[in-house]
């Protein structure tokens, strides 16, 4: 087995808030291997976004506090890394795509400058002019792709004079070469007419286009890990389908591992190789995506799967899960799911339940569930 790109071990994160301490993540552990796509799925407030932000240490600390655990990214424990070194990992090591591209893009800069900045930083790190803690991935093979005609756009100045002071822009670098690379990335994300897009500002693009630009920026650092936090949730359904198709195609072209976070079970089914189901800050079911979906071994996963409406089924009421997600300040004692669990036994209200155990009777040894009674899930009412 190859060495994992990312190992998260017993990661626990709290938020210190007025009413007390919210246990946002409790003992989260998983591994992500090169080229793998791990989906994280769960309802609002289950901690999936906290996880996405905790890995590259983007959480505001305080109020967040990493209580324990390790996040080992390519051999470096990010939890122990001093704060000033964290930017050296981001971009060329770990990059992110968030839900709302309009909030991630700088409204005051043109698209080309925003992509150029990311590429420039990678160039600096590749050439050793700036220290990067991890090296970017090997260049992608663009030989299959027809290269852009950059000449027409080169007549315009790349950098508006005002921008020079604010953004880290390549004053000394060969602008033509840089711009050609920017165009390559715009083409990589299948943007039609990239020469026009270059000079536009984020507000002039549609939601789908903006998210493509975000993906281009994220990939232009050639990261080993891409964290996508609900990347298509703000998009319309046909546009979401286009962006998902694009991301799937890109997975085969770039060698990046992806942590794909979504509340949508359908999106995860389409994108991920493996999936972790989160409930109240804890991964309760983890395994290959076909295993977890077809043979869920945690009562929560099974209840969640059944409550999704399906356009081909219409008889009878939708099976729904009683109750609601627990308050993270006052978690129930024992297993956090026991108040809603149809197969709970008396001991579940006292025993906090196991960490992830191999699911009993599952067809893969990689299928883990945080439940002592994973065998009972099969006959769950």
């Amino acid at each position, binding site marked *: 087995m190859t060495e994992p790109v990312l190992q998260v071990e017993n990661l626990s994160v709290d938020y210190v808030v007025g009413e007390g301490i919210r246990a946002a993540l409790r003992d989260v552990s998983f591994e992500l291997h090169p080229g793998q796509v791990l989906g994280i799925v769960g*309802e*609002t407030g289950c901690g999936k976004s906290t996880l996405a932000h905790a890995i590259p240490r983007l959480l505001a600390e305080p109020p967040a506090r990493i209580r324990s655990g390790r996040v080992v990214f390519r051999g470096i424990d990010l939890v122990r890394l001093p704060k000033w070194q964290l930017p050296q990992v981001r971009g060329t090591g770990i990059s992110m795509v968030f839900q709302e591209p309009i909030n991630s893009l700088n409204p005051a800069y043109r698209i080309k400058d925003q992509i150029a900045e990311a590429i420039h930083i990678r160039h600096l790190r590749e050439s050793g002019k700036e220290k990067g803690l991890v090296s970017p991935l090997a260049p992608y093979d663009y030989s299959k792709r027809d290269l852009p005609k950059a000449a027409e756009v080169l007549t315009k100045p790349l950098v508006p004079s005002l921008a020079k002071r604010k953004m880290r822009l390549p004053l000394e670098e060969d602008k033509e070469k840089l711009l050609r690379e920017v165009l390559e990335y715009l083409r990589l994300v299948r943007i039609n007419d990239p020469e026009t897009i270059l000079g536009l500002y984020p507000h002039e693009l*549609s939601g*789908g*286009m903006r998210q493509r630009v975000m993906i281009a920026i994220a990939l232009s650092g050639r990261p080993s890990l891409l964290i996508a936090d609900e990347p298509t949730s703000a998009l*319309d*359904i*046909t*546009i*979401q*389908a*286009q962006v*998902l*198709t694009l991301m*799937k195609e890109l997975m085969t072209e770039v060698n990046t591992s992806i942590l794909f976070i979504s*509340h*949508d*079970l*359908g*999106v*995860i*089914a*389409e994108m991920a190789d493996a999936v972790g189901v989160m409930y109240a800050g804890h991964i309760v079911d983890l395994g290959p*995506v*076909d295993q977890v*979906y*077809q043979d869920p071994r945690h009562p929560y996963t099974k*209840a*969640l*799967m059944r*409550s*999704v*409406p*399906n*356009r*081909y*089924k*219409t008889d009878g*009421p*939708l*099976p*729904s*899960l009683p109750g*609601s*997600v627990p308050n993270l300040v006052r978690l129930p004692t024992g297993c956090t799911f026991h108040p809603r669990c149809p197969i709970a036994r008396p001991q579940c209200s006292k025993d906090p339940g196991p960490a992830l155990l191999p699911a009993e009777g599952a067809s893969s040894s990689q299928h883990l569930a945080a439940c002592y009674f994973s065998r009972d899930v099969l006959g769950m009412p």
Partner: protein
Amino acid sequence: MTEALVETVDVEKLFPLTQSLADTLAGREKHVIHAVDGVSLQVQRGEAVGLIGESGSGKTTLGWLIARLHDSTGGKILFEGVDITKVKGRDLRPWRKEVQMVFQDPVSSLDPRMRAWQIVGEPIQAQGPITKAQLRARVAEILPHAGLPADTLDLYPHEFSGGGRQRLSLARALALDPKLIILDEPTSALDVAVQAQVLNRLVKLQRDLGLSYLLITHNVAAVRYVADRVAVMYLGRLAEVGPVREVLEHPLHPYTKALLAALPVPEVRRRAARYRVSGEVPTLINPPPGCRFAGRCPFVIDRCRVEEPLLRVIPNHPNHTVACHRAEEIGDLPPEELIGEIPRLPTS
């Protein structure tokens, strides 16, 4: 055919964009957003109609027109056969009682400084004087219909969960015992498990109280559970209308097929190329003649760009209307069977 509860006849809502003085003086063409552009739709008594479409399709505007929150710029709206298109202000009041709305975001549609009984009681007060004790008693009767315990009377909206808030919205809509409830994305802000609770509640209420619904949503699966008929909207026009099962299992319009194909399904299937449409939803400002979907349609022919297709019944599909010139040729295959390469049809 019996008289419909609500009927729109070629209803139209155009939003003119502001124009600069220079443009006005130069006599340049005005830019107009065609949000709803000639839509005829009926909702029968006791019927739930789903209205699906993407953002910018005009589905919310249509809902607002029917609720008379917008004034239409053309066409007619009939309620139980009475034309209410031009009725204004105080004269609308008896009719307001019959049509209520539930909005997408329960946080912004509930006043954070009012208690549950005040929120649900407000529409009742608006209809006539009532004592506080009577009002509270009346609200306590209504809350259980929406699936809320009666002891939540004195809570503020922030004390409810997301699903609880949406139920509170629903209770407010039920307060006046309306005939039609317009549900605008009622479950889009909710998690799946909570969404299932709310959808089940909607189905039960409709059965128990004989309500009519207009369910506006982009969530096709929710429509399947709640609605009897479904209308698919694209860029201000109806693309397809029919019984929910017919439309979702045998879609006729290329846009409906694309919309269904784009739904991520929580099943692990062969990750094959799927039927996809390219391009994005174009702008509604001064749309070109012809079919609104022509720019993205894989089956487009020259005729589509010139002549606007009208909703029509095609053979073998009774009660099912579609606005597509080529519906017969394209057929009713569900998108799953159009996987891979889109069949190239002979261009007539």
